[in-house]
């Protein structure tokens, strides 16, 4: 169920903050935590990896912040940054697709919902893809599918460990079946990476649902989930409408997935880099 309820969700505090906007917020600005309602100073939140110091709620972070968090200083170089979406269906709903795209570009400063590139993580050479929920709900259209596929192909060829940080509402409706087929495309290319013996670690962050969960996100050797993330195939609103019941508390959280055997570890954001580093030590030495 692509995107589903995330467009209905209140945007108040979990909005992705583009770097330019963030600088304008003074250190002393107060923010109310979505999860516990506690009041946090902006500066305190930034220093704590945008995790609520009171309840450990992981606020969404932008893809560039994530890249900075995971890669060694100045080691990351972006790939395929010039790929941008077309409007193959001439899709018009309440808004036209080109309008959606230009608004997302303006809001995030990004060209698409994923950044791919190569860099180093504690000196391990990695191929890294980071999705950004701020760009049309992190949805996967042709560009996301193509950039991920190219990165996987490159990692396979160069035997570089692959890390993908997921955050997505699913396949992008505005590109119709072309989006859905990206699930098959990215999955097929991952089969080749596994055959070549290249490690792939996937990191599921809040929220990861729909077509991304049902393709590359869950086809990794090791699956990590950030604390408290919403992860699933169908979105909770769709499930509630289908079964006509309220969902139990904690349903589809990282901890729920851990309990049901769907992820290897639930990791706090501050430990993420160290955890991946340790895993790469195991797999590539």
């Amino acid at each position, binding site marked *: *169920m*692509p*995107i*589903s309820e995330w467009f209905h969700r209140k945007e108040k505090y979990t909005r992705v903050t583009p770097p330019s906007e963030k600088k304008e917020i003074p250190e002393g600005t107060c923010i109310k935590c979505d999860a516990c309602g506690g009041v946090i100073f902006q500066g305190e939140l930034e220093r704590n990896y945008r995790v609520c110091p009171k309840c450990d709620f992981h606020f969404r972070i932008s893809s560039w912040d994530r890249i900075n968090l995971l890669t060694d200083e100045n080691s990351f170089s972006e790939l395929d940054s*010039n*790929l*941008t*979406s*077309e409007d*193959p*269906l001439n899709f*018009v*709903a*309440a*808004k036209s697709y080109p309008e959606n795209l230009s608004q997302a570009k303006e809001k995030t400063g990004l060209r698409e919902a994923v950044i791919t590139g190569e860099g180093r993580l504690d000196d391990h050479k990695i191929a890294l893809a980071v999705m950004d929920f701020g760009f049309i709900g992190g949805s996967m259209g*042709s*560009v996301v599918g*193509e950039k991920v*596929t190219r990165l996987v192909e490159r990692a396979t060829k160069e035997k570089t460990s692959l890390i993908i940080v997921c955050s997505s509402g699913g*396949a*992008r*409706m*505005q590109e*119709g*079946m*072309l*989006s*859905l*087929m*990206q*699930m*098959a*495309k990215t*999955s*097929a*290319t991952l*089969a*080749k990476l596994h055959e070549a013996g290249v490690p792939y670690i996937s990191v599921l962050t809040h929220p990861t649902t*729909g*077509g991304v*969960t*049902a*393709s*590359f*996100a*869950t*086809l990794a050797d090791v699956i990590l989930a950030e604390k408290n993330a919403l992860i*699933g*195939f*169908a979105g909770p609103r769709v*499930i509630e409408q*289908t*079964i006509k019941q309220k*969902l*139990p508390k904690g*349903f*589809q959280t990282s901890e729920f997935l851990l309990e*049901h*055997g*769907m992820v290897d570890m639930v990791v706090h954001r501050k430990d993420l880099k160290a955890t991946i580093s340790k895993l790469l030590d195991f797999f590539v030495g």
Partner: protein
Amino acid sequence: MNMARYVMDFERPLVKLESRLGELKKLRAAGQPDIAEEIEYLEKQIKKLHQKIYSSLTPWQKVQVARHPDRPRTSDYVGLIFTDFVEFHGDRLFKDDPAILGGPAFLDHRRVMIVGHQKGKDTKENVARNFGMPHPEGYRKALRLMKLADKFDMPIICFIDTPGAYPGIGAEERGQAVAIAGNLLEMGQFSVPIVAVNIGEGGSGGALALGVADRVFMLANAYYSVISPEGCASILWRDDSKASEAAEALCLTADKLLDFEIIDGIIEEPLGGAHHDPDFTSQGIKKVLIDSLGELGAYPSDKLVEERYRRLRKIGCFREPTP
């Protein structure tokens, strides 16, 4: 007529004429003179209107035909096209999912493995088969059967017909996403030919999980979509009643998907939809299956896998200006 007929909105004018015709015929039988001409005229009108309605169905109307309760199911085509079908059950992990039907059969002289979404013929069977919406165990059963086919060098025939993978608590607990992703990855690797036929509803990832193939066909009134028109309408229009507009926008019909090279061909349906003549429809399906397997059988297995990958690899539409 012994049962209430299921009438789609756009068929109402037709049904009105038909019931008028029925009345006239009763009168004639009762001995009323001078109405033969009127009956003949009405019959012609009905034929014309039928032709007119069905030769220009809108995408949303096609979705309704694809969902028609009388539409032939996977099991119907299995009976009409194949011989000696043996149904296999279970994923060996949790349970048997009746929303997926599968097992070996003969297509003329050729051994094949059939895997398909299975809807019910009536409410009771639909409840048992969860309206063709599989749980993870359904996808895992499908995968198990496809692995068998790969081992015994049998081509795989997939029938797609689902509103989508089931969105429920148990499905999430048992890894719906992981099950679908697993099929997508494995289907890319099998060294036997795979042919998929969408016979009705192609609902999103739950349909695609049986849709990675060397050749993909659609019945003329089937639809294949990233999201249901209703779901799309409620998200992008914030209005469920815009499903018709959403169906148009999503380009989910066979002709559009052929243009986008998502599918390889369209299988004709009789006027009025597949349920008006399942025999005719099944002959069309049988022909493309035999032709496709004949063609794909000539490929060495490594070439087959390579071509299947190439087929997927090229799907996508984007701009890449040289920097």
